[in-house]
């Protein structure tokens, strides 16, 4: 019994580390892609807009399953051999980043035109207007939706058993096959994912407070 419990703790602990790294790395990349391509989507330059739209539609239009498979199993045929962890982070980050880009685009679009025009009238550059006027008003709108995306990313990490990464779900499955126990690993799996979910929720709450607009100006 003790041996089984130690087995469970060891394997689930290893799985937790993998899932946590994937989630953090994936979220960081997704955030970067969201801003890069979300703002590129509303750029004045045609080529930048086209590239951004291409990225967003490609990664929203195909499943993360296909994407991770291409990164890990098909790219080596073209001479690119990414490690499993990098493949996982890149696939999750690019996929969720495409949804994030749409969030950035719509949040920026929801800031009134008058704000951009007032910025121009005050002779701010486009960058200054974005940085000091538009984004501070758009970011509070993005945070809760980004939070949802982060949770989606967390749940999508379970896909990495495909590419030889032993995350929480995979470890639970391996434990079942090793020991024949089903209830225990599933309880632990449930608790671990829920704990990670609560951590993300906590982070989102903090970010919401940090970026909150003064009362009365909260986006509705």
């Amino acid at each position, binding site marked *: 019994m003790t041996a089984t419990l*130690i*087995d*469970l703790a*060891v*394997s689930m602990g*290893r799985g937790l580390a993998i899932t946590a790294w994937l989630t953090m790395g994936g979220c960081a990349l997704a955030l970067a892609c969201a801003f890069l391509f979300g703002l590129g989507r509303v750029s004045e330059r045609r080529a930048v807009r086209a590239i951004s739209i291409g990225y967003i539609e490609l990664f929203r239009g195909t499943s993360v*399953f*296909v994407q991770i*498979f*291409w990164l*890990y*199993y*098909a*790219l*080596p*045929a*073209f*001479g690119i*051999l990414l490690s499993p962890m990098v493949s996982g982070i890149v696939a999750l980050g690019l996929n969720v980043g495409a949804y994030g880009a749409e969030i950035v685009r719509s949040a920026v679009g929801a800031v009134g035109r008058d704000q951009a025009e007032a910025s121009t009238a005050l002779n701010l550059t486009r960058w200054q207007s974005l940085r000091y006027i538009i984004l501070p008003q758009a970011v509070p709108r993005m945070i809760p939706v980004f939070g949802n995306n982060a949770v989606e990313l967390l749940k999508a990490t379970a896909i990495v*058993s*495909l*590419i*030889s990464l*032993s995350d929480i779900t*995979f470890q639970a*499955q*391996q*434990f*079942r*096959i*090793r*020991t*024949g*126990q*089903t209830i225990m690993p599933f309880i632990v799996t449930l608790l671990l994912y829920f704990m990670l979910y609560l951590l993300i929720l906590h982070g989102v709450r903090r970010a919401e407070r940090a970026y909150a607009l003064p009362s009365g100006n909260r986006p509705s």
Partner: protein
Amino acid sequence: MPRLNRERPHRALLAGLALATLIVGAPAARADDVGSMAGSPSGSQSGRGLTTLRQRGFARLAMSNEPPWAVIRADGSIGGAGPDLVRAVFRRMGIDDVRGVVSSYGAMIPGLMAGRSDLIDSGMFMTPGRCMAVAYSQPDLCDREALIMQHKGRPGPRSYRDVAADPNLLIGVPAGGSEERLALTAGVPPARIVPVPDGPSGMIMLETGRIQIYSLPAMSGRHLLDLWGTRRFDLIPADGTPVMCAGAAFSRDATDLRDAYDRALAALQANGDYARLLTRYGFDPALSLHRTRADLCAAPQPTAGPRP
């Protein structure tokens, strides 16, 4: 557990990608046919020839958790009859280190093709289809099909035909595996065949009455009964089913490595190490004795034993 053409939810996609990789790698396969080893896209960046492996000092073994065929332990280390045999063979070839690439069952062949492993040994049965995708060694671990059912104290079904004859029986099969085809061939209607995702799930389905019979390779069944306790369940060989054999699977552009492996395997079979290792895990070393890759790869799809 080892399965023939095991279905996974994404099997079609896996197959498609595997095929795509195969096509991309096709020039390499042709170059290999005329005896050249270099110049393949996957070969050039991952190098899986014998010399490359010797220089690198270790081999990468893809496997999934299919006890007792292949086992992944809590600390991530690997064991089981297949990997242990592979270790012994490679040691004889002068490569002392074999590292596990832990995969899901369906991802092992695409991974091999993508250069992410040097070989697979995870109780993956030889079939004509797989023999075209990978270069198999001579058969190493062989087994028969078996049936598990709750212990009732009275005689139950002994073959797929018996299952077909009793309209009250639901039979669980490893999703899409050879067992499904065996059952269909014996006349079990599709509505009474239930796909089972993994061993423990099959046992729970038996316990809760979702299925009455669970069919799978005998060695896998024995392992499950060890975990579940033999008193409540019966494990019997399924009458009239063919012997299936697994082997180590290599990339098709690494036949030199495969041939070297075959020679070392034959040596271990000759000196008795092979039989000792298999017996330790409960496998019958005699089953592979008169079976060859050529026969198994050419075999027609299994039938449900002798015709009446």
